[in-house]
């Protein structure tokens, strides 16, 4: 163990030193460059990229929920409501199939609209649930998510009901249309990076400390003079805003929305990503999304099937078809078992969040 850990420690030291010297988040920038280079890797084809785009959307959602659940400790089981808000806002304002209005809104101009509307919906929900705690909060948010989905189904004059809204335009800027998978991937990496940075700053600020206080004990926090109402609403607004942005990307990428994409399963997936990754941890969200969203898809890749077929004769499992196909069709069983296993082995998640530490600019304080 020690031997494998040593190079990492050395690397961390080196990065740390570089950060001290340049006053830049060197480690984070390196990670960004690494992530941005993924489409250039030889093994990465469009299948991988398409999955990575979906993973990226869930990273964005995870970062949003992380504020609500991870930082402020407010258990939200209806996060899909914000995702739907973003996706449908853009779809209604941009799709030619939209029955109510033809606004032809440009995707890029939709960003501020969606962020603001998302925040507004977040505050609205926040106002409703202010007096609620813990699992009472969980069930009301779950209900809120379901209500939004049923509204999308039933308010057909606006949403086109179960048929959904299609041919939603791609992002377009002065004639340049965002269409290839690597462009979408880069857009997502950059926006996730920006969001993660912004969220990191919020967390290190007064607001972040207020959230932490609320999470640890709301009554004590209020007693210590933390304006719990304001900061709880802020958490909902921020989380909802980010979640809506995820929806905006979803609508622009798939060019089609219908209510069956906005079920409770999405809320459960995002929550699982946050908890499996480690509550309040940003790298946790990244890895959580990679595992929970990426794995079920990769498990039905032809390569995986072929790989498993090689071991097939050794295992008496297959009936009429080969083992690879069996595993591909049983991948949600594996998914469920995986959730149980990760929690059993790492109850704190894969990358437990470290508390933010205020570091003084001068080094002489930390000679020890």
């Amino acid at each position, binding site marked *: 163990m020690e031997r494998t850990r040593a190079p990492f420690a050395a690397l961390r030291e080196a990065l740390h030193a570089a950060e001290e010297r340049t006053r830049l988040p060197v480690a984070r920038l390196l990670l960004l460059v690494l992530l941005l280079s993924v489409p250039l890797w030889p093994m990465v*084809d*469009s*299948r991988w990229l*398409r*999955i990575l785009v*979906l993973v990226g959307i869930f990273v964005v959602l995870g970062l949003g929920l992380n504020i609500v659940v991870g930082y402020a400790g407010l258990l939200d089981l209806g996060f899909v409501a914000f995702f739907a808000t973003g996706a449908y806002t853009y779809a209604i*304002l941009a*799709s*030619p*199939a939209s029955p109510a209005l033809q*606004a*032809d*809104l*440009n995707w890029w*101009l*939709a960003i*501020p*609209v969606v962020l*603001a*509307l998302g*925040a*507004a919906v977040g*505050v*609205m929900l926040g*106002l409703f649930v202010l007096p609620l705690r813990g699992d009472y909060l969980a069930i009301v948010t779950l209900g809120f998510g379901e209500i939004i989905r049923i509204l999308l*189904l*039933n308010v*057909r004059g606006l949403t086109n*009901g*179960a*048929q*959904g809204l*299609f*041919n939603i*335009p*791609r992002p*377009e800027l002065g*004639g*340049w*249309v965002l269409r290839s998978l690597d462009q979408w991937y880069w857009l997502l990496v950059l926006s996730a990076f920006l969001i993660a940075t912004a969220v990191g700053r919020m967390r290190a600020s007064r607001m972040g400390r207020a959230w932490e206080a609320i999470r640890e004990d709301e009554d004590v926090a209020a007693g210590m003079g933390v304006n719990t*109402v*304001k900061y709880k*609403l802020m958490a909902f607004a921020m989380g909802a805003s980010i979640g809506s942005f995820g929806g905006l990307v979803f609508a622009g990428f*798939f*060019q*089609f*929305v*219908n209510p*069956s*994409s906005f079920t409770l399963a999405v809320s459960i997936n995002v929550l699982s990503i946050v908890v499996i990754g480690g509550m309040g941890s940003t790298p946790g969200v990244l890895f959580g999304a990679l595992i929970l969203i990426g794995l079920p*898809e990769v498990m*039905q*890749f*032809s390569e995986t099937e072929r790989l498993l077929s090689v071991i097939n004769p050794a295992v008496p499992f297959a009936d009429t078809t080969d083992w690879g*196909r069996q595993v*591909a*069709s049983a*991948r*949600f069983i594996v998914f469920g078992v995986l959730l149980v296993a990760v929690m059993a082995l790492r109850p704190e998640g894969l990358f437990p969040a470290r508390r933010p530490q205020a570091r003084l600019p001068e080094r002489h304080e930390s000679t020890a």
Partner: protein
Amino acid sequence: MRLSTRWVRVSWLLVLMLAMALTVVACGSSDDEATGTPVATGTAVAGGATATVAPPESGYPVITVGAGEPIKIGISTILTGDLQALGIPIAQAAELAGKDVTIEGHAITFERKDDQCSSEGGTSAAQQLIDAGVVGVVGPVCSSSVIASQPLYEEAGITTISPSSTAVASTAPAGRAPYATFFRVTYNDAIQGPALAKFASETLTAAKVYVVFFNDAYGQGLKDEFEKAYTGEVLGSEGFEKGATDFSSIVTNIEQAKPDAVFFSGFFGEAVPFITQLRESGQTMPFLSADGVRDEQFITLAGAAAEGAYLSLPSPTLSGDVYTTFKTGYLAAYGKEADTSPFTAESYDAASVLIAALKQVAEVDGATLKIDLGKLRDAIAASDLTGAIGRIAFDEKGDNAGGETPVSFFIVKDGQFVPFEG
């Protein structure tokens, strides 16, 4: 009150944000009008119904099948979740059509991908099939997967033939021409809905009906077409969600409204509890439903309650030589009857159309085989053959216009679907 002042402030914040949002929307739309340039996509064609089909922007690729390698056909269907009982037989039926077929010495293999009947699953399956180098695709099964994946297949120049997508939008997308690379074997809701309405008012002589529908793309779509065409009075129209079990409240409403007939737009999974509760509460009015319920499981599960139910199928009564070949072949290969599950014959035909077109356009080039996907698409568009469900020939939008009596009716009698003649 500290709280109340907060609420006031927050409300202001809300109002402000909304105002901001609205301003941006207004700016956004006026912006586009001002520049007035037709946006680069250039696909907005007026009058979707009569529009001509636009070819894919990037053209069609030519796929080379190496010496001794098989030709790959993709299948996009539902392999997991509670609709797998619908999706797996569809895949099996398609695979049956390619069994033992060789084209210039090349066998045919099928790549199955799970689209989970969702838009995300549909696109993911599409990407995997495109990257696997398939020459054509049978599927997707569900309209939501179809609509989400159409742009991808179109861009890759790969033709898809859906056995079962009944949504009108699949061949008549809003704001653009129909996709050149999409065809479907089954008939859409716009044909089945009016036929059901006519059946209700003329054959059942029902002046008042009560409508119960599955609140999804299929149930809503078919119900809309039915209500549009029905000349009598719709006393009530109530929706339910996937997995609904308790219909007692709707049944009580029906008891109160006293309709002449009940029209159910949905799948057998929910039709079973509904008709059981309806019949056990003593209601005897005719029950009318469509293809989603015309499944062997409806009879096995609902038993006595299913007796006397009227069901439609958007295809002629299945008979004929090809159907017999398919039926016996299916039974031999999978050990069960093909008609226990809907859309198997359609799937067999979709694969057959694809294979027949492949035979026409595959060109031998030394030891390899060259398949021009553009020519393949045109051959599919021009196909005219007799399949298990009858004659198949596509119109310019990609709908099957081959059948002469596209909607047939059945009645459940002694635990069997019996063709019902007026």
